[in-house]
């Protein structure tokens, strides 16, 4: 018999990891914002931040940029999510792979790609000049538009995957039924589909917004001083000014914004939508907004009718949506592809088209101890992170499955909490305690940090598999004489192996791409690949980084394709 205490034991590793290296460090760090040198409480720091004015300005600017990025990501992602969710099974895996490849490829690499594309010597300017649209190369880089485009590009796949989860549960028969009741396709879309997909849209918007708010790579590499975001100030406070109280208050601002949004979201839509699970509030949009959206749909349908855009026969008319989705995927993939030719350039600086083609940069990387060392460390850390995540998340997921009601909600919220906290906050808080635990500059420090960040993804992936697993098979095994251990080993685990593999993939790739933790905790010596790339890029973007990016892309694609192959084989 499973008892409460054994269930508690299964949660113990997760509780230990999240307690010691998530909750406690964050609490410890954040209180620094409200204590003075003698350790007594004070509002002095908060007051100074308020009075300085620049901090609140940067916060407002960050929110503004994040809102734009959110809006664009959801709008751009929607058609792709729609096509992915409604594709017939044969095409679906192709669409999924095309969207997943950019999703899995490095944040940093994708940001680099925009430096190349938008640069004065980049392909876009080359095209503009060659076609005569502009006489001189334009300053496309280092501005608001570059930051918003770069961030949107990185976050669209997030939006797509979040929305797909909800869209896949929309019964396609409903649109058919709406047709027989007199709704034109456009009307049916606005009145039925859009309403029902609203929880997914809201969830996507929330995730994108909170992730965007914690971004520092895109604004630092693609923006000017005016696009400085709040996380950049946090880095500055920690690494340059060593002003922990200010860093703590800025992080609190960031965290507070995120938490308020989550609470509002949970009240309106339900947190569980994030995992693509229960639809406690599947009613979706409110009656008022539904009426507005419905009227909009009627208007568009009328317009389409006048313009004769309406599909004349049933079953057609998906083409325009498909083309939109293809455009979205091109927007996601082309920047990555453009890095490849650049990496073969023999010049010191970026130029388009690449000239003096050769393997110069690859030779430099492969003969550089610093790069090889960082690469080796990154893979080792990613591997260890994966092991740690599985060891913690698998037992917790099994225990979670048996929970019901309030207990389940609380456990779920606790397990995905690191997802709700901007990574920068986690990284700075860990740095604050690592300094005293002697974990700065150690592989252990990196692994623990990465595991905390990857844990929610792994947990959600595993409970998703367990949901589809028929528990009666366990009962059958038990009735045939298998012990609990034997059941797990011979029946349960083999059946959920595919799901566990994709969960492991999450952990591996997230760790491989994680920069926040390494930014502080690598201590300068124990550099990871993203950290080294970041250090290079902040100095100057050379074709060397394009070559590194190409190698990273190759490695990540290999991992993703291998995992896809493994999953379809099992």
């Amino acid at each position: 018999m499973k008892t409460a205490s054994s269930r508690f034991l299964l949660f113990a590793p997760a509780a230990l990891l999240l307690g010691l290296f998530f909750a406690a460090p964050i609490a410890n760090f954040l209180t620094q914002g409200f204590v003075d040198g003698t350790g007594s409480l004070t509002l002095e720091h908060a007051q100074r931040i308020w009075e300085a004015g620049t901090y609140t300005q940067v916060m407002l600017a960050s929110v503004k940029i994040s809102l734009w990025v959110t809006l664009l990501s959801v709008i751009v992602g929607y058609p792709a999510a729609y096509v992915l969710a409604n594709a017939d099974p044969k095409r679906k895996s192709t669409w999924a792979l095309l969207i997943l490849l950019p999703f899995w490829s490095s944040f940093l690499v994708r940001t680099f790609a925009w430096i190349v594309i938008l640069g004065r010597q980049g392909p876009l300017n080359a095209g503009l000049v060659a076609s005569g649209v502009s006489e001189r190369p334009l300053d496309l880089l280092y501005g608001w538009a570059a930051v918003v485009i770069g961030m949107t590009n990185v976050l669209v796949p997030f939006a797509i995957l979040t929305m797909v989860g909800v869209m896949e549960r929309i019964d396609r028969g409903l649109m058919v039924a709406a047709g027989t009741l007199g709704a034109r396709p456009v009307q049916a879309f606005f009145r039925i589909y859009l309403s029902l997909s609203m929880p997914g849209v809201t969830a996507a918007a929330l995730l994108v917004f909170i992730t965007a708010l914690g971004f520092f790579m895109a604004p630092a590499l693609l923006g000017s001083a005016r696009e400085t975001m709040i996380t950049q100030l946090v880095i500055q406070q920690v690494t340059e000014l060593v002003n922990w109280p200010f860093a703590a208050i800025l992080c609190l601002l960031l965290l507070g914004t995120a938490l308020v949004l989550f609470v509002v979201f949970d009240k309106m839509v339900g947190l569980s939508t994030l995992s693509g699970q229960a639809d406690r509030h599947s009613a979706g949009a409110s009656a008022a907004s539904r009426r507005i959206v419905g009227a909009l749909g009627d208007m568009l349908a009328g317009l389409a009718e006048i313009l004769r855009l309406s599909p004349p026969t049933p079953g057609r008319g998906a083409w325009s949506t498909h083309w939109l989705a293809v455009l979205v995927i091109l927007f996601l993939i082309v920047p990555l592809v453009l890095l490849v030719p650049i990496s073969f350039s023999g010049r010191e600086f970026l130029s388009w088209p690449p000239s003096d083609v050769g393997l110069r940069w690859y030779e430099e990387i492969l003969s550089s101890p610093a790069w090889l060392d960082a690469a080796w460390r990154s893979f080792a850390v990613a591997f260890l992170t994966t092991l740690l995540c599985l060891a913690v998340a698998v037992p917790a997921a099994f225990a979670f499955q048996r929970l019901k009601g309030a207990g389940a909600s609380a456990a779920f919220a606790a397990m995905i909490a690191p997802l709700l906290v901007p990574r920068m906050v986690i990284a700075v808080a860990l740095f604050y305690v690592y300094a005293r635990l002697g974990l700065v500059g150690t592989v252990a420090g990196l692994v623990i940090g990465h595991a905390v960040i990857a844990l929610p993804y792994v947990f959600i992936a595993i409970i998703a598999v367990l949901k589809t697993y028929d528990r009666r098979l366990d009962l059958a095994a038990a009735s045939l004489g298998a012990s609990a251990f034997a059941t797990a080993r011979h029946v349960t685990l083999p059946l959920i192996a595919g799901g566990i593999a994709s969960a492991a993939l999450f952990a591996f790739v997230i760790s491989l791409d994680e920069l926040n933790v390494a930014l502080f905790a690598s201590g300068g010596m124990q550099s990871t690949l993203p950290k080294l790339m970041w250090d290079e890029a902040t100095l100057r973007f050379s074709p060397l980084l394009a070559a590194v990016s190409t190698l990273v892309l190759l490695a990540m694609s290999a991992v993703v394709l291998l995992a896809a192959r493994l999953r379809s084989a099992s």
Partner: protein
Amino acid sequence: MTTFKLDIRDVTKRYGEAVALLPTNLQVAQGEFLTLLGPSGSGKTTLLMMIAGLTETSGGQILLDGRDITQTPAYRRDIGVVFQNYSLFPHLSVFENVAFPLRMRKCAEGQVKAAVQRSLDMVRLGHLAQRLPRELSGGQQQRVAFARAIVFDPQLVLMDEPLGALDKKLRDELKLEIRKLHGELKKTIVYVTHDQDEAMLLSDRVCLMNEARVEQIAPPVALYERPRTRFAAGFVGESNLIQGTVRGGAIAVGQGMLSTAHADLLPVEGRPVTVLVRPERLRIVAVPDAAALRGRVVDVIDLGAVRRLTIAGEHGDTLTMTMLGGDQPVSPGATIALAVAANDVVPLAEDAS
């Protein structure tokens, strides 16, 4: 010439090489209740979906009130459809679900209210208008789906196994309700089912389908009394199929001779033929004459009200016979003689293949 409400002319559907529906002709009169009956995969849904405009035809024409609607999109066909899984909009209340087709037709708010209320009252759900679909039982959801399909006074109502997802008791109840509503509404209804009881109870005519084509179209009783093929005889009701040879306008079966009132359906003299005799049309006769079959009782199942005998016929086939209970008992092993009225001996065509 009268125009039919629905006129299906040579309508066919192919999926690549596979044929889901061979060229089919079917006419439905105003106010008629027509059932498409047939085993799973026989093309019923395909035909219904083409009428609704939800599947493209591969050929042929569909006329509604004499108007060709083959190329008309579903939303302009003015045909109400009740789906097997109801397809109620989960985010809209019962009221809004039923109001949906009226809103699509830009009806005035007052009209919408009145029509929705009337429709819901008709299916006895007026009091649940504000609920969400998931707060209703399966039977109630089914009735909302029906109300939604008729509220806009469609030309035609199509129903695809609307009771398929319900348990037997509820099905029996709703069957009677649909029959009553058809009587009140006088709507033309095309109804799909694979359940012969449903077809018999509801229909003015049954269109029996098999392997992508129409097997026979007839009123329920006619389909039972005079099926044309082995398939039709076997699919509707219980049947004894007796092999014989045509001899002088009658059928020689072993030692006996069966005469038939349907001699026009017999093949030429000397050819083998299969005839249908329904189990309840067999009678035990005390004095055997030429027009009788002989056999030995193998098994007797007494259900009180009726009694079912399994008889090994002398001619070789096994016969089933049902008779009212309560008469003098028949015991297994007894040899009996059986007679059947000429009108109840129905020669069958070989199945078209």
